[in-house]
Structures are given as C-alpha cells and as structure tokens.
C-alpha cells in the first residue's frame, strides 16, 4: 500500500522510502534495494511549484524536469539550469522525473545495477569497478566507490550556490546534502546524506547578480538522451575582466566537484583567450584518474575551456561538442 501523506510532519514520520516521480524508486525496488511501502510525496503542497522569493527562486523538490526546463523564470535567469534539465534523460522520463529525485538518485554504475554483483553500495566489501570496467568512473576522490554522482542538476545547482531545504536539518549546501565522510575521511558510498524521515522539500537559488551569465556544457558520446562523460557548469559576471566566477564539474567525482583552482586562476584577471586557457589547464588539479578514465582528464580541461569561452566569447564562435 502506498502512503500519501498530505502534511510534511506525517511524511517525515513515515520515514520512506519516498517516492516523487517514481522513476528512481521503481528502479530500486526492482533491484530489491528499497524495502517498505512507498511514501508518495505528490500530495505535499510545500514540495511543489517554482516561485520567486525575496532573495531568489524557490524550486520545489516535486517539480518535474519538464516543468523546470520550460519555466520562463529559469530559462531567463538561470539558463544553465534550463539547458541542463533539458539534457537529462529523454522527454518521456522528464515528464515524470523530479528535481528532488534527480539530485538524490543512486549511481548508474553497471556493477550496482547488475543483480548478480556485489559492491560497496550494496553492502559489499570492495568496489568491483576499480579493477573491472570503469570507463565512466570518477577522476576525483576515488578512494571508495569509484562511481561519479549521476545527477546533472546537482552539478548545476551547486554552481548556482543553491541551498537545499531539508525537514529537520534546515538548509544544506549541495555538498552537505550529498557528501559525508567516514571517520577515516573516506567518502561514504551513498547517493545522499539524508536519514530516514529527512525530506528534501525545495532548492533555494540566490537571485542572479547584475550581468550574471551561465553556461552548461555536456560531453556525451551520443548526441541526445545519453549520460554525460563529463559536464561543466559555469556561472560568472564581468565583461573584459572576470568579476566573479564559479566552475563546477559533474560526472567526475562522487559529488558535484568545484574547480577552485580554475576559479582562482581567472578571477579578477582579464577574460582573454589566453587567460581562460591557463585557467582551464588547472581543471584537473588534484585529479586521480584510473587506468580507464585518463581520457576524462582531457575532456574535462577542454570542457572547462569551452564553457568559459561561452561565457566570454572571443571573436570567433566556439564550436559545440561535435555530438
């Protein structure tokens, strides 16, 4: 029996497993990895809708990707978010899947998805992808599970400095929402840090600064409806000079990965092609590629450069990835 709470407190007491659009929970239940009666969230008004607030935009966790990608406010003021939403999955999934579900989703690693394998996320003792096939693995912080976080929206929301509203925990950064370390300092191989009963209700996006621009760049093998190998979101302001910039990469780490070295290198400097190139060259600072993922370092650097160039176009047009 599916529970359909109408009040947040009741939903929190039920403890989950929570169901938003159902696309992720359906998958996990088929894998036998989400026990219990589903707690459906669609009757909860606070989780719905996109609205302007005093200091920015509030996006309910139950907003579908289809709504998000088509929302005029999002398209105008947070274009990278609209572009990213439109790049996720395909139309018939986007009409079901939600912002909250996308951000909190489990890994798509084949070893996790295969029912006959064990892995750290399924209670196993090691990561079979490390010595097995891992061409889609992370290149930063691969100390435990090598799978990258699968959420495109998390990457872009992190770039916009969005804060998650979570019942019982107040507001959390994307990092706090998605990343937790064990006592040994190694990341826990979990998709998010929410405990049973903690409910993600919305993301708060700060209002864009004057002259703010953003870009989202996705590198995937197939042109449409494919998972990214590398993705980069950039938010910035300034014309000839880089007044502010934030660069976050996705599909390369267990959580959205902020490229601070790039930001620091270009901040306050001139936005010339050379300066941007020098900045992008620092994209892989601190990376640790596995044997099968070295190519991602090249892609990451190129993607960061292309995204920066989109924000500060030189005289000629920057080609989109040839996909």
């Amino acid at each position, binding site marked *: *029996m*599916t529970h359909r709470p109408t009040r947040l407190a009741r939903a929190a007491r039920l403890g989950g497993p929570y*169901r938003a659009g*159902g*696309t992720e*929970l*359906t*998958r996990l*239940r*088929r894998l036998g990895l989400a026990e219990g*009666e*589903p707690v*459906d969230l*669609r009757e909860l008004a606070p989780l719905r809708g996109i609205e302007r607030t005093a200091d920015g935009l509030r996006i309910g966790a139950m907003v579908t990707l*289809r709504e998000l990608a088509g929302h005029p406010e999002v398209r105008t003021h947070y274009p990278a978010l609209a572009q990213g939403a439109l790049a996720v*999955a*395909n*139309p*018939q*999934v986007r*009409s*079901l899947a939600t912002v909250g579900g996308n951000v909190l989703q489990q890994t*798509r690693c*084949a*070893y996790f*998805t*295969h*029912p*006959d*394998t064990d892995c750290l996320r399924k209670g196993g003792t090691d990561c*079979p992808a490390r*010595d*097995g*096939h891992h*061409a889609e693995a992370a290149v930063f912080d691969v100390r435990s599970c090598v799978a990258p976080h699968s959420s495109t929206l998390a990457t872009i929301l992190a770039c916009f400095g969005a804060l998650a509203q979570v019942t019982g925990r107040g507001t959390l950064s994307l990092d706090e929402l998605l990343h937790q370390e064990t006592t040994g300092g190694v990341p826990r191989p979990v998709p998010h840090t929410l405990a049973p009963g903690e409910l993600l209700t919305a993301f708060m996006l700060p209002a864009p600064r004057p002259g703010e621009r953003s870009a989202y760049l996705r*590198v995937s*093998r*197939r*042109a*449409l*409806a*494919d998972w990214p*190998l*590398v993705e980069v979101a950039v938010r910035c302001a300034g014309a000839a000079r880089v007044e502010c910039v934030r660069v976050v990469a996705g599909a390369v780490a267990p959580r959205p990965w902020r490229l601070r070295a790039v930001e620091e290198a270009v901040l306050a400097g001139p936005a010339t092609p050379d300066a941007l190139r020098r900045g992008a060259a620092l994209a892989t600072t601190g990376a640790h590629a596995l*044997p*099968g993922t*070295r*190519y991602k*370092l*090249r*892609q990451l650097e*190129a*993607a960061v*450069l*292309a995204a920066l160039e989109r924000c500060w176009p030189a005289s000629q047009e920057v*080609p989109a*990835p*040839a*996909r």
Partner: protein
Amino acid sequence: MGVERFSVNGVERSFESSDTDSALDVVRDQIGLTGAKRVCEAGACGACTVLVDGAPAASCLMPSDTLGGRRVVTVEGLGGGDRLHPVQRAFLAQDAVQCGYCTPGFVLAGVAFFEDWRAEHGTGVPPESEIRAALSGQLCRCGCYLRILDAVREACAGRYDDGDDAVAHRHETLEKVTGRAEYTTDVRYPSQLEGVLVTSPYANAVVREMDDGAAAGLPGVRAVVRLLPEGGRIRHAGQEIVAVAADTAAAAREAAAAVKIRYDHSPAATSMDAAMAEGAPLVYGPKDRKSAPSAGEVPVLFPRRRWRGNVCSPAPPLAGRAARADRAVRRAFEEGTGAGQEAAPRAEGAGQGGAVVDGVWRTAGQSHVPLEAHACVASWDGDSLTVHLSTQAVSLVAHAVARRWHLKSDQVRVLADHVGGAFGAKQGLTAEAVAAIELSRASGRPVRVVLDQRAELAVGGHRPASRTHLALRTGADGGLTALRVEAFADTGTALGSDIAKVAGLLYPGAPRTLRDHSVVSHRPPGKPFRAPSGPPAFWALEQAVDEAAHRQGRDPLELRRAWDTEPVRRRLYDWVATATPWPERGPVAAGGGPVRRGLGLAAAAWYYYLQPRTKVRARVDTEGVEISVATQEIGTGCRSLLVSVFADGLGLAPGEVRARIGDSRLTPGPLAAGSSTTASLVPAAHDTLDRLRRRLLATATRELGLRAAAVALDGIRHAGGTVTWREALRLAAPTEVTGRRPRDRGRRPEPWYSPFFGRGQGAPSIVQVTEVEVDERFGLVRVVRTWCGLAVGRAVRPVLATTQCHGAVIQSIGQTLYEERLTDPATGLTLHTSLENYPIPGIGDVPEITVDFVPGGFDHVAQQAVGLAELAALATPASIGNAVFHATGRRMRSLPLDPAQLLGEAE
C-alpha cells in the same frame, strides 16, 4: 491494491492499482492494450511510451497507483473512428516502419510533438533538430530513423491531414502503426502461465545439487522443469538451469528466487586473452567439443581442424592450391623488410620492392538486442504442439521441435505473425522455447517465456569480438602482390568465424593466406549477426588498403581501381567519382582547429545466398488472391515483396492480394538468413505468377471459348479483345497453383550446408563514402553524411531496399562508435542490463544517408533479385575509420572509436 479509475483512449474505466505494478502493467497486461511494449524497463527505449495528460511518459517507470484520474492515450486510441491520425498516415506513406516493435512509441512521441507544433506554428515545417529532440527517447534497432523523421516532419507540415488514401509501402504497416500487430510477446491464451528462467551467476561451474521443492510449493506455481541435470556443466554466466511457470510473472519470479542451487565453481576464462593464456581453464574437453554451437551463418564445417587449449584453428594446408598460395605469400613477405608475425602496426617502405602494410585490428563484441526479446508461447493439445515464437526460421524450428520431442511434422506448428527484430539472433531452438515447451507439457497449460532485457543482452546473441592480423604486400608498381590475414574471433562458448576468409573476397588475383581461429571462453555463445564476420574483415582490410594508398601517395579510389578487377565493383568506383564529393577531397589532416572534417572510402563484397527449394503458393478465391509460404517477416518487407509481384503482375490493387506467412504448416519457404529471402522468394513468386497466368489462360479459353488467346501484360489477349486478369481470376476461382524457385542460369549454386541453402555465383558489392566530423577536444566522432552505392542486380522494391540499407548503416554506426559488450573480468557476467547501459544509436546520431542502386550484374538470377541486408552493413566501419584518418592523420585500429582511443589515452 485498490480499485481506481482513469481515462484510457477516451473511455473511463477502473483498474487495480498496486504499489508494485507500473502503469505499463496496467495498460498492457490488465487492460490488454499491447501496443505499449515492454522492452528495457528503464525508461531508455521508449517502446512503452503512452501519453499521460497529453505528454509522453515512460509507462514502465510510472507507478500504477499514480494513474488514478489521469487521461491516458495509447497507440490504439489515436485518430478518430476508423480514421488514422495524420502522423500514422505519414508513417504508412513514408515507409517509417521495419519490424514495427518500436513503432507505437514513435508514433505517440510523434503525435505529442505534432500537437504541440500545430498549436504554436500551424503547418509550418519544423526544424529537424526539434523533431530529433522530441523523439530522442525512442530507440529503433532496425534503424528506421530517417524515414521516421521524414514522416513526422511531413505530417507536421500538413501533408497528411486529409484523405485516407496514403499508400502503405508495406503490407503490415497499418497493423503496426495502430498497435494491432500481434507479436509473440503479445500472444495471450486463456489460462496462460508465465515462465521464468533461473540462470547461473557463475561462468565455470558444475551444478552439484538442486532443490526446487520449495519453489514448486509456492502459491500459483504450476510447473518446475530442470533444463540441466545435477552434475551438469555451466560454461557461461547466464546459462539456463531451471524454468518455473506460475499464474503471474511475479509469482514465477518469486518461485525462481526460491530455487536453491549448489555449485562447484572454478576460475573461468572470461576474455579472449585469458582464454589464450598458458594454463587457462578449458571450456571444452576433447569429448564435448562437438556440442559447441555455431557463431557463424552456417554450421561449423572445419574439414580439418586443430585444437590448442581453447583455440580452434584450421589445420594448415598440406598440398594443392592453398599450400602453393601459402608458400607464395611467405616468399613475398620475406622479400620485403622482414615484416614478420609481430603484432605492432607498421607500414614501411620496403626499398624499391614496394611496401608492407602490417597491423592488428580489433573489434568489440556487439549485441543484437532486437527490441522484441527472445519470446515463446507454447501450448500442447494432446500430442500436438503449437509454438508461437519470435523467430526468423519458422520451418527450421518446426523441424527441430519435431526431432527433439519425437513428433511427426503435422503435430508441430510454429507461428510467427510479426517478429520484432532478429538480426541473426533468432535462428534456432533456443532456451526460451525449450523452457516454454517443457513447462507447457508439465503444467498442461499454455506457457509464455520472454527473456527480460538483461538476459537478452547476456545470452540473446552477439557478434564476437575479434583481433585480426592483416598484412598486405605491394610490388614495385604499387600493385598488390600478397595478402596475409590471421583472425581470432572471441566466440564465447560457440565456434566458427570467417573473418580472414571474407577479407579475401576483394582484390582477386594476388596470392593470399587466410586463417580463421575461434577462441572459446566462459562467456555466452556468439551468434550470427547480420553479415557474420564481415564488418571486422573489412574494418581491417579496407583501412589497410587506405594506408597503402596513403603510403604510395595515391588516391585511395585510384588504388582500388588498379587492384580490383571485378566488373561489378568497377562500376561502383565510377559511381563514386560522379555521385559523391570524393573528387573534391583535400589532403589528409588539412583542416585546422579542434573540429575537423574528413572523407573516407571503403569497399566490400558479400556472398549471394539462396534457398533453392523455396516454393510459393497462390490460391484464388472469391475475395481475390492469397499468397502463402512458410517464411516470416522480421522487418525486411517480404510480405510486401510477395504482394507486389502479384498485384503488379495481375493488375490488382495491393489490397486484393493477401499474403499468409509466419506459419510452418504453409508451403516450404526460406528462413531469414544470409540475405537470401529476396533471392529465394521473388523468383519463386514470379514462377508462381507465370503458372497462375497460364492456369487463368486455360480456364478463360475454355469457359469463354476464346480464340487465339495468349498471356499479355494487362490480361488475356484474344481474337475478340482482352479479358482482364481480374475477370479471369473470377472465372478460375477457386483454384490453386504452386511455383518453385527456378534454377539460376549458368553454373549451379554450390550447395552450402544443406540442399536447402546454397551459394550462387557473383559477389554483391558495395562502395561507401562517408564524411565525419572529429572533435579533437573531446575525442568524439560524428557521422555527417554517407553515400552508399550498391550493386545487387536489381533492387526489387527500391523504397523498401533503401529503408533496409539505412538500417544496416545505422547499426554499423552503432558498432563503429558506441557499442561494446562488456564482460566483468572477475566473474564473467555480462555487465549490460538494459538499453540504458548498452548504447545503440539514437535519432540524434543518424547522418544523412544516400543510397544508390547501381544497376547491372546478376543476369543469371531470375528477376536479378539478390539480397542486400548484410551487404549494406559491411563498409560503414572502415569508411568511418578512413574518414577519421583523413580528418586527423591518425589511424584508429579498434572498434568502437571511443574517446579514450581518439584522445590517445586508451588503456
């Protein structure tokens, strides 16, 4: 569980919701709207798409208890009354359907786009990029995307708003665009059970003990059948051990999970390298090698073969022509720079004596993954057995079933009305059929067994990966003086590969040594896949030839003209010079910047196979003409070929001719293999037509007392005028004639592996020019445009033939750029679980494709009817590889062309 209400196709109705069922379970299984197909169950393929409140939704991921109060439209509910929706009409008219299994999803996504577009833009023509984006969630394994794009665009533009006069290019399109076509997965008898297979998680093991008692005692379980005895050997993960039938699929899955099996498992050889290593665990002992299935198009016929560990090789020739060629090849290479057996790619000048181009070429395994999985519904009635099977061989399977279960041929009937793709994977009696038949016998009820997509990807079939050492030697004049090809195919537990042999099909004349090895490993068996062994052969050969041209500073087209004496292909080389942009091709790696364009050329040839015993029956009754033959439609359009022969030949509308196929009880007909369906059916159909016309002439002459009557194009001419064929048919009804495929003129076809399957004279050929864009920043290749010139005698139905070529090219683009079967090295498990993580090309990846049929050749074949389904799959990989070289100056040696390789960062 609860009873809820929703609107389906405009009708309010109640349904049982539950927290475990999906919307697909409700729509397809509960309500019986089987136009919504169950394929990937991961939201990746779009086959289950329905419209929910107007928007396309993946019903496989939508919980059933969220359907209440919603407005759902399925493909069955489109249009009004007996009027089709304009998008459906456009699919008919644009030939936008092959096997048809993905069609309902595409039609619904197209309709959703159409309605949005019309609301905003009226009958403006939508940009292609928008249509591609709207259809990006639908996958088509046949590769029908270009036709679908045309259909949706033309429908939006208003071309199909009016009239119901759209002419379908295919006999069964109407059933397919309306969801009425019944595939094996859609068959449902009253009291039918669902069967589920228990498979091995181990790759190399012995089944020690099985306890299926608990499973058999669970509620709803009706039969448990062992497919492997205790003590039975497991040779690959995913091998079937036990089958369970229960009232519902959920109950059967639960019972399957309750079967306890104890294994003795051992280390397994899970890759070709591991299988070839010193001391590798053996897959077959000397006694059980004969049990290995075939990975090739025909059974394994090694007259003399030699096993070394897991490698099965032909014994070297001792005498005769092959031995002399061997010696000549050895001499030719010794004269060169001493290019020996080393694996490192090399291409060096060899002093004044010409050059040696020597290299190792690899291809990854490619899964067939037809959208309709292997599926069977078996039903015993006393000693008689009806088998609905998703198969490309109704007759052959009926024979195999009769043999295995000791039945007379009239006790077995195999039916396949529509088949949702096959590509070579559905030729034999496979586990799902054995399980369904045994479970039905044990339970006394009809049983359906359908592989889920994980099983389909693991054991459903794949083209073996390969490693080919190819060396060619050129003389001082630049001519080809010797060719040496040694190919290792990664065949899993199967045997059989012809890569080297196929590489010897082009450039006749020079001596050659061609050796093919099968490397067996503890992985699922390879199966014949559209042109078995072909793509790896030409991937190696045609890039080596390109390399030789580059070394000599010659135009690759000119080099092929100099080397290739086959008249059919020489016409194709002329076609390249006039019909493609090849003559304007610039120097290698000329473009600057990170995104570069390149143009590549490749040639290929294939065999002309035919099934000489094919017969076709025509029955005339009061409703018209019915053509029947025991063949099956897997997306090639063979019903339409049959209908067109008789409609054209008798001046009838296509609707007046009915084609009955997909039934093993009909007149013996061809299996869909070796591109032989057209070459078998069309000549036989024409023979039947001739016989029928003679019969009509005789009847009309007698009944009407005609004088000087003779067969003419439009009917029977006689002294007093003309009797139309329609009139003559009326006079003759009821009557029946059976024609047979006439022999080819000239030399007889060489019987291949049975009297039913032969190889005729002549080599169907293709030359292909492809333009690519290489993004050096990200290591990505996009195919921009490709031109295919085919020499196949005469394309019988050019529209259908073109559609089929599109499909072959698109599947090959998948093989070239994306597809790679991954096996976990530690466990031997196939890692792919659905089309979410096995990447086949989508609508965004499809280039513009030009297909030209260059007429001529094959005059010895009746109607010059020669098949092309495999031929069109041969040249794409090498034409892309050569184009990448042209763009970048770098030679790629492994398929697929993944970013790691393109960025020079491969492991």
